[in-house]
């Protein structure tokens, strides 16, 4: 407003120094003359408009304008003859009509930019900024119709400017919000030395030509200390993929800060480069009541990363195990998992980058005294082989015995497994006794019951009947002393067949060493 008034004063001052002597009179005299001329009604047809002011943050800059205009069919100038009361004569006057605009652009930091422009029928002020401050911007416009007056001096034959009259048309305003830039990270996690991490850097509202610098502090991970990218062309919002390699200057564990520096912002994320000297994950043994332990040995951190393959039941261990991340720097980790359902097999991978180990967690319903009961372990073993080796059988606690035997075949003889318990079916005992009765000779058992692990060690088929507890391998002896085992093998097989064996198998390939017989 002050400026506007000042402009008016300057304008009047300019008038005072005009060549015409009586125009050099007091400024109020010219004003009065202008008023009189206007009141003569010669130019009342002129229509002018003010109001078009626009300001927006649009790609790629902040831009706007304020404008005013008048009807193009109105006359821009004209002549009138009017009576001059001071000289008491008639004079010829000339007028010219303009529209003008005064603009005021106010920035978020408080700066004001002023501008003024005029023309016969249309005037506009433009503003644009390539990298504007973030916040509200305002553009104000004041719109005028200007009329300049001139008078004709008969003596000199010149036109003299006598003054300008302003019609104030009105003021308009507009505002625009310039959003603040934002940078965020996705995928930042703790990584191991040597491991690679892919981080997504999302940047929004960053102007072309502005720079986002990525820095890593704490570990010499980005050799040279950082990277940067400049937004250009069409970019204003972008997602960049940055790969970070887990390496530190001293090859020691380190906390690292990932920083993004950009106009008006600094976003940070922290992660740890983990060092692991050694790690051993012992195969978790089958446990009762959904409890299991994962033991680690060595210095360094334990980083449990994955859970897979629930089998009979959903193990639902994910949250519990993931909570182990960053475990203990030294010694053993022991965690009780309460939500593991019985009869489930789960693979737990623990470790750090390439230095990881897997453990199989088997959770079964316990037998007898529970965790300490060998049968619980054995059930877990069956479940494990069911899940991973195609075993088609899964015993219950009552299937195990520590005493089953017959007159000629003791429990100790028939239990060729790794445990003090075994599965020995009654039909096997009956079949063996009947076979022996047919055979007429002692029958040394070379292999009776085998637990699945034992069966695998000796090269047995996963679903070997030895695992089911209804098979036995009987050694062939040269009972008739003829130096040939084949006839003895055949006799033994016939004895078993006559005793109702479901399947018998002789082994000429192994020198008739034994006969397999089962009663399934």
């Amino acid at each position, binding site marked *: 407003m002050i400026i506007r008034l000042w402009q008016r004063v300057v304008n009047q001052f300019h008038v005072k120094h005009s060549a015409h002597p009586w125009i050099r009179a007091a400024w109020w005299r010219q004003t009065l003359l202008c008023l009189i001329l206007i009141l003569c009604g010669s130019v009342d047809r002129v229509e002018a408009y003010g109001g078009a002011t626009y300001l927006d943050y649009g790609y790629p800059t902040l831009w706007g304008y304020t404008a005013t205009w008048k009807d193009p069919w109105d006359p821009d100038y004209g002549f009138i003859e009017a009576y001059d009361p001071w000289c008491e004569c008639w004079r010829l006057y000339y007028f010219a009509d303009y529209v003008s605009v005064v603009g005021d652009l106010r920035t978020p930091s408080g700066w004001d930019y002023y501008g003024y422009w005029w023309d016969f029928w249309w005037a506009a002020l433009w503003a644009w900024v390539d990298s504007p401050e973030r916040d509200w911007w305002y553009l104000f416009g004041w719109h005028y119709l200007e009329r300049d007056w001139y008078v004709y001096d008969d003596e000199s034959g010149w036109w003299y400017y006598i003054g300008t009259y302003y019609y104030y048309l009105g003021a308009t305003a507009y505002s625009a919000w310039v959003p603040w830039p934002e940078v965020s990270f996705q995928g930042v996690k703790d990584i191991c030395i040597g491991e690679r991490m892919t981080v997504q850097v999302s940047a929004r509202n960053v102007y072309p030509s502005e720079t986002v610098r990525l820095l890593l502090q704490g570990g010499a991970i980005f050799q040279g200390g950082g990277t940067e990218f400049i937004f250009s062309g069409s970019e204003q919002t972008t997602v960049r993929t940055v790969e970070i390699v887990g390496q530190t200057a001293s090859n020691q564990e380190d906390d690292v800060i990932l920083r993004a520096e950009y106009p008006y912002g600094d976003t940070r994320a922290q992660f740890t480069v983990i060092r692991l000297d050694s790690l051993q994950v012992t195969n978790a043994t089958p446990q009762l009541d959904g409890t299991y332990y994962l033991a680690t040995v060595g210095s360094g951190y334990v980083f449990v990363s994955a859970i897979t393959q629930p089998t009979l039941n959903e193990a639902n261990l994910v949250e519990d195990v993931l909570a182990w991340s960053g475990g203990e720097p030294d010694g053993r980790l022991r965690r009780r998992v309460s939500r593991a359902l019985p009869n489930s097999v789960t693979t737990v991978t623990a470790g750090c980058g390439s230095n990881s180990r897997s453990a199989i967690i088997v959770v079964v319903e316990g037998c007898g005294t529970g965790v300490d009961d060998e049968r619980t372990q054995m059930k877990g073993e069956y479940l494990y082989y069911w899940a991973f*080796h*195609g*075993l*088609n059988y899964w015993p219950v606690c009552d299937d195990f015995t520590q005493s089953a035997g017959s007159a000629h075949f003791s429990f100790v003889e028939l239990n060729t497994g790794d445990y003090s318990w075994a599965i020995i079916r009654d039909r096997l005992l009956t079949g063996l006794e009947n076979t022996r009765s*047919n*055979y007429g000779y002692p029958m040394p058992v070379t292999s009776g019951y085998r637990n699945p692990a034992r069966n695998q060690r000796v*090269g*047995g*088929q*996963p*679903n*070997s*009947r030895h695992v089911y507890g209804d098979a036995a*391998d009987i050694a062939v002896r040269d009972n*008739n002393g003829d130096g040939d085992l084949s006839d003895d093998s*055949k*006799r033994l*097989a*016939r*004895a*078993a*067949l*006559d005793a*109702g*064996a*479901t*399947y*018998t*198998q002789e*082994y000429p*390939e*192994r020198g008739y060493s034994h006969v*397999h*017989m*089962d009663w*399934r």
Partner: protein
Amino acid sequence: MNKLIVAVIFLGLLSTQLQERIARVDQQDLQRWVVVLQKGELTEKAVVVARLDSAAQDEQNVELIRRNFLPLLVEELRSIKKLRSHPPSKKWLYDNAEWLGEYQGSILFLLGKIADESAVDILVEYLHTGRGVADGLARIGMPAIPAILTQIEKDYDAIIPACIALEAIADNELKRGNKGNLQLFKDSVLPTLERLKQSVPPDDDITLRRLQKTTLSIQNMIRQAGLETKYR
């Protein structure tokens, strides 16, 4: 009422859909197993055979397994036989003989459950292995008898399981009151068994005893059926 009808129709459709879906899943399993049996490793095949054995415990699956797997299982038996006669090496066979034997046993046991008349020839070929095959032949019944009789003439070791099968078949025929079939036993089975008895080596008391027992047993059954027998 209309709502009830709509609900019933909807549930009906749903159950049909569900059944189809279950059937489709099973079909997928079956297709996968077929591929394994055709192209898989021996260890994979053994697992599939175990799965099939488990599935065959459900009577509803037997026909499905028979239709899809019988030729494959027969082929598998042949390939085991070939492998045993022409192994990669003697050492390999020595190490894997037991594994192969058990694998063969599991196939035969499965075949015993699912085989029909078309598989009689392969079953009798393995009759000497035990009651698993004998039970399968017994289940097939009278159509298996000619093949059994032929086999025991060729394979001495098959006599005992054959006796078990023949006894079981005769018993079934007696229970059904099928005198005509028991007449066949009288006319052809008993003479064969009698002839075999004469040819049993003196030191094989086990086979002889079984033949005597079976002969007596079948004679008893024939008598119970009201048919005279000259073999006493």
